[in-house]
């Protein structure tokens, strides 16, 4: 009886162990090895490191994760945190109206309609990008807060704008953190 069970279980257990070794150990370690050698920056979180005036290096963020900006001299990203609210709910409408009011407080000269992405939360809650329209909406404010001309701001923005893939897939995005680092002269 025991012998019979042993005979039946051998293929099951051996198959499970070999497959676990192949798919759960060898495969991920192999990919990790290639990743670390060929793409060291990408595989470790696309960290942006800057050198401070005193020569020390600090990590100021990941190029792929949004940070919170509120000061007028910075390009400001989308609201932080994902809401999971129904877009048609009362709660959502109230939240959007609060954000609209917030933008008007920040920049009283700009009374135009606000781009949708600046008043809606993203999926990740840390969307690193905003739309080119949302960046353009903020150009005048950033320029006046920094005392530089608007075209200088636009130049920086266009430098950190990614296009869609092969011109048809996905949308353009402006990387908020990179623009702000460039405006501060850090990259």
């Amino acid at each position, binding site marked *: 009886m025991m012998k019979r069970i042993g005979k039946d279980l051998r*293929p099951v257990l*051996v*198959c499970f162990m*070999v*497959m*676990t070794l192949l*798919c*759960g*150990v060898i*495969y991920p370690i*192999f*990919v990790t090895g290639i*990743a*670390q050698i*060929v*793409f060291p920056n*990408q*595989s*470790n979180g*696309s*960290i942006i490191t800057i050198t401070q005036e005193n020569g020390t290096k600090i*990590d100021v*963020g*990941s190029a*792929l*994760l949004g*940070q*919170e*900006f509120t*000061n007028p001299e910075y390009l400001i990203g989308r609201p932080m945190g*994902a*809401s*999971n*609210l*129904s*877009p*048609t709910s009362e*709660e*959502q*409408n109230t939240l959007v*109206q609060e954000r*609209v009011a917030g933008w008007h407080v920040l920049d009283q000269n700009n009374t135009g309609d*606000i781009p*949708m992405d600046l008043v*809606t939360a*993203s*999926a*990740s809650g840390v*969307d690193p990008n905003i*739309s080119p329209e949302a960046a353009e909406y903020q150009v005048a404010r950033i320029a006046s807060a920094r005392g530089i001309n608007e075209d200088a701001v636009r130049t920086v923005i266009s430098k950190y704008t990614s296009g869609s*893939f092969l011109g*048809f*897939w*996905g*949308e*353009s995005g402006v990387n908020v953190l990179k623009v*702000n*680092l460039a405006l*501060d002269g*850090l990259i």
Partner: protein
Amino acid sequence: MSSIVIEDGLFLIVLVALSFPLGHYIYKVMTGQTVFLSRVIVPVERSIYKLMGMNDEDEMSPRKYAFSVLIFSVIGLIFVFGIQMFQSSLPFNPENFQAPSWDLAFNTAASFVTNTNWQAYSGELSLSYFTQAVGLGVQNFLTAATGIAVLFALTRGFIATKKTTIGSFWKDLIRTTLYVLIPLSLILAIILVSQGVVQTLAPYKEIVTLQGGSAQTVPLGPAASQIAIKQLGTNGGGFFGLNSAFPLENPTALSNFLQLLSILLIPAALCISFGKAVKDSKQGRSIYAAMLILFVVALAVLTYSEQYLAPVFQGVMASGNMEGKEIIHGVGTSALWGAATTAASNGSVNAMLDSFTPLGGMMLMFLMQLGEVVFGGVGSGLYGMIAFVILTVFIAGLMVGRTPEYLGKKIEAFDMKMVCLIVLVPPLLTLFGTATAVLMPQASTWLTNSGAHGFSELLYAFTSMGANNGSAFGGFTANTIFTNVIGGIMMLFVRFIPLVAVVFLAGNLSNKKIVAASDGTLSTSNGLFVGLLIVIVLLIGALSFLPALALGPIADFFTTIK
């Protein structure tokens, strides 16, 4: 909108173009022919068989095949449960995560051995790298391979005459993993890393933000290797809690394109493989056509709703619905991903589905409620669709008064019993789960939204588990003892009852002789049959779920019309 149509159109062209060569390749693998990778893989394959003590020629009866699948899955279940419970004493746990609660560990284990990947946890907040790779990652491969293996067995049932065996589960499982899943995952994982998907064993990174100098944690881990198979194997369980909506899991337009393609690629290719295997490519193509038509219609409604039925806010530029969507993915690819992930039993997301418009959310639910046969899970989607094909043949046979047959096999009472199990168990369990949840007094505390949309969150959760899909309306609080336990049991039943029925159906078909087609035989490869098949799929889905949908997304939609 025209740009979205181009986006979707080109995507579908690439998908279809790639599915033909891949389908041909998988056909060769399933029938044991030599392929270009054989030279490298055959020695590995042989030595595994040797270690297992099995003979290359061994075949299994349906009973033994089903038993092997079940015992193999039980071992997986125990293993994944155990790894989670002991993760604090296991290696590669740089963030020192402790064991989750027993009910959550059970739910996660059930979820991953059933190819569902429903996630009541957040990976980066609760699971070690070891648990993710050795526990969950392995199941991503094995459950996908199991689905394809069972499809192979069913296919053999159609080809064989008067045979009592349906192939060897071990060979099917091992060959699928070695020849199909590992090579494709390897390529995809490395491209994903090049785009910025993380892949490291180092601990999380702390950075200091530019404005305000506060701390931000950058979660890391061996993510790319797992994300590749998560997409290719229609698993869908994110390495990170926010899945492919999280930039470190899906950073660029290219990564988004490839991950989206990978959701549908193998399920689509299997239609081609099936046609080749039964020596009538038209049969595979007509099933493929039915799936594509259902997919495109659902996609059109979904995209229209997200683009044009989005709310308009005062003082804000009108645009599509951007709540819960990432900038670079936009409305177009978010809607396309939503359709693909629910059609194909994948369950990964690149946008927050809870924040889709009411009708958009309804299409997501309905695609799952059709029984995950519009592409569906790898292997399981096609064997589910073949059950619908047999049902359609049966109904058509009743109408003209002929004994129904499919691919030369007479469809008889036992076959129809199995088909009923395959087709009816998922909706039955879904409705049962939803109804039980609604009766719980604390149900309303699990929801983020209120009213009809709140009910949608709950219906979505049980639809997702009851379809082995795994996507979620994120506002639903999933980690409760009730949902973990009931959901875990549901996922196991929904996966294994139909699966075992398919294996016995395969055995029964295998045992029959093949009758030659005559003038009176119903063609199963023309436009008329494709239309009939679509009607039957829609009919079963609609009859089962319209009342529930009326209380959720449909009511939600009508409350927005002022």
